[in-house]
């Protein structure tokens, strides 16, 4: 039987506010335990929450970026459960009237095709603290610094049909929140966490199968692997005559499998009700218009512009627009040299390669966009050839000069395009290589093309790499063929 996979994602994005969603405690990462947990975060009696304006603004900006309806009135509810990292005994969240209503996100797949994934809603809530399960004399340690950190939970419709689509969706969310600057998007530090709902159904069937929810999948790669495992598990189960039960499962990246955490019968009954400590949040049109006017150009718009106006391929446009830092770097390089295709090649090729090798982000690139743009300009105006350009790049990377021109001068890399000078070098190489010349003359005409490489290499060496390779090729062929 043919099976179809159905996936929905709940993505928790930590919002990059300075203070917490309901208190004035700091949200800075990495502080000493409990030094950033105030009376409100600890749920001390009498402490009252006051909503952070910036958290609201960030949620609205996300909503606008995914073409969603922003609720004129949204309401905070209490989600009740007991766990020591949640000292109040409830999480303040939004169940019935979330701030961001239905919207959609366009995802781009590896083959360059696009698909629209619907957003069911997105709501504001507070994060819980952290439990440290190392042994403290048989007890558990609790750090509440994270308690009260604002989260935006983005809930998709079950619109994804493969692990690849789910990963692409997660990347699209990551791209949007980092473009907006509403989250640092750092998955390793938990700034983006994801619950995955997976089910399978026979191809062609309309009704959804029973789904399992995989909790806390924290990287793009794990999302794909967790789904791949879970789909296989469910199909095998059904084909062996069993049935999937609705349950929560945990992904174990070390074993590459998902394990049952709790079934629906034991599922929590959260008893949501409106939080009496918080009033309804009312947003007026002027406020929304103001936030809309502050929106940056978003990844999808950039991608389209790179493709349509700058002539980049769908693939290049997608890769470069995925990160705002990379997109802006690329645009600065392009402004300097005027050649979009070359700019894209250098940013994705030489520059990305060097950054990856040294584990640097593009924001910390030792080569500035202006320097790279100038370097490309020198290739475009034939001042240097491609080989010399790589040498200049390396020298700029190592800080051996301020500009491409400085390095070209200092290293004498200026391309030799003077025909007379090149001919002189060719004559010298031919004179110095009687054996190779004889071989060339005696070989089959169709093999000569390959043999010419030796002479090109020698001439380039004699010019210390500065001869124009196209000219060398042409002139060499003429001169060698004249000897036949």
């Amino acid at each position, binding site marked *: 039987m043919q099976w179809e996979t159905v996936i929905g994602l709940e993505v928790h994005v930590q919002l990059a506010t300075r203070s917490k969603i309901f208190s004035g405690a700091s949200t800075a990462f990495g502080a000493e335990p409990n030094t950033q947990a105030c009376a409100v975060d*600890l749920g001390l009696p009498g402490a009252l929450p006051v909503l952070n304006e910036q958290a609201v603004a960030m949620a609205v900006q996300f909503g606008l970026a995914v073409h969603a309806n922003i609720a004129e009135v949204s309401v905070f509810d209490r989600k009740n459960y007991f766990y020591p990292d949640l000292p109040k005994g409830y999480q303040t969240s939004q169940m019935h009237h979330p701030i961001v209503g239905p919207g959609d996100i366009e995802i781009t797949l590896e083959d360059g095709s696009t698909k629209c994934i619907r957003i069911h809603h997105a709501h504001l809530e507070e994060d819980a603290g952290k439990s*440290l399960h190392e042994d*403290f004399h048989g007890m558990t340690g609790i750090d509440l610094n994270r308690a009260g950190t604002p989260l935006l939970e983005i809930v998709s419709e079950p619109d994804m049909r493969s692990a690849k689509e789910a990963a692409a969706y997660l990347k699209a969310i990551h791209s949007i929140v980092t473009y907006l600057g509403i989250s640092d998007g750092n998955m390793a530090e938990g700034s983006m966490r994801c619950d995955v709902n997976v089910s399978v159904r026979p191809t062609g069937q309309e009704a959804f199968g029973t789904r399992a929810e995989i909790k806390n999948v924290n990287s793009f790669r794990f999302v794909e692997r967790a789904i791949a495992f879970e789909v296989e598990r469910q199909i095998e189960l059904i084909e062996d005559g069993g049935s999937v039960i609705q349950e929560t499962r945990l992904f174990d990246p070390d074993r590459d499998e998902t394990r049952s955490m709790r079934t629906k019968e034991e599922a929590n009954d959260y008893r949501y009700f*409106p939080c009496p400590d918080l009033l309804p949040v009312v947003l007026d049109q002027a406020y929304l218009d103001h936030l809309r006017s502050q929106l940056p150009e978003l990844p999808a718009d950039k991608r389209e512009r790179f493709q349509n106006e700058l002539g980049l391929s769908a693939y290049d446009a997608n890769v470069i627009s995925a990160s705002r830092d990379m997109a802006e770097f690329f645009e600065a390089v392009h402004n300097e040299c005027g050649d979009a295709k070359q700019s894209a090649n250098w940013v994705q090729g030489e520059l990305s390669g060097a950054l990856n090798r040294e584990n640097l982000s593009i924001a910390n690139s030792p080569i500035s966009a202006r320097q790279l743009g100038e370097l490309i300009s020198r290739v475009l105006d034939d001042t240097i050839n491609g080989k010399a350009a790589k040498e200049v790049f390396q020298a700029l990377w190592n800080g051996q000069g301020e500009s491409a021109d400085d390095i070209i001068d200092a290293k004498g890399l200026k391309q030799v395009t003077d025909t007379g000078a090149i001919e002189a070098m060719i004559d010298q190489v031919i004179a110095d290589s009687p054996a190779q010349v004889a071989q060339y003359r005696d070989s089959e005409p169709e093999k000569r093309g390959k043999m010419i490489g030796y002479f090109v290499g020698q001439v380039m060496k004699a010019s210390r790499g500065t001869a124009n390779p196209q000219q060398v090729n042409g002139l060499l062929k003429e001169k060698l063929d004249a000897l036949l």
Partner: protein
Amino acid sequence: MALEESHVRRAAHLARLAVSDDQASGFVEDLSRILDMVDQLQSLDTEGVKPLAHPLDATQRLRADEVTESNQRDTFQRCAPAVENGLYLVPRVVE
């Protein structure tokens, strides 16, 4: 709605309240009376009435995103039964 003791037990469990057998039967009666009142409310025609999120006719004030709290860990931890290395210690939780 007829309330049974099992409902009371479940509600008590969810709220982590210890309820003795005697108390449980008393709660069945008390809560049933409350539910009877709810039934009475249910009989009203609320067509076209917006659900009420809060009894006050006011909207949420927002605060500027500024850090206004300083570290008061030592003060807060004075009332905690067990602390170590700045952490609050609780009976082991394993899910």
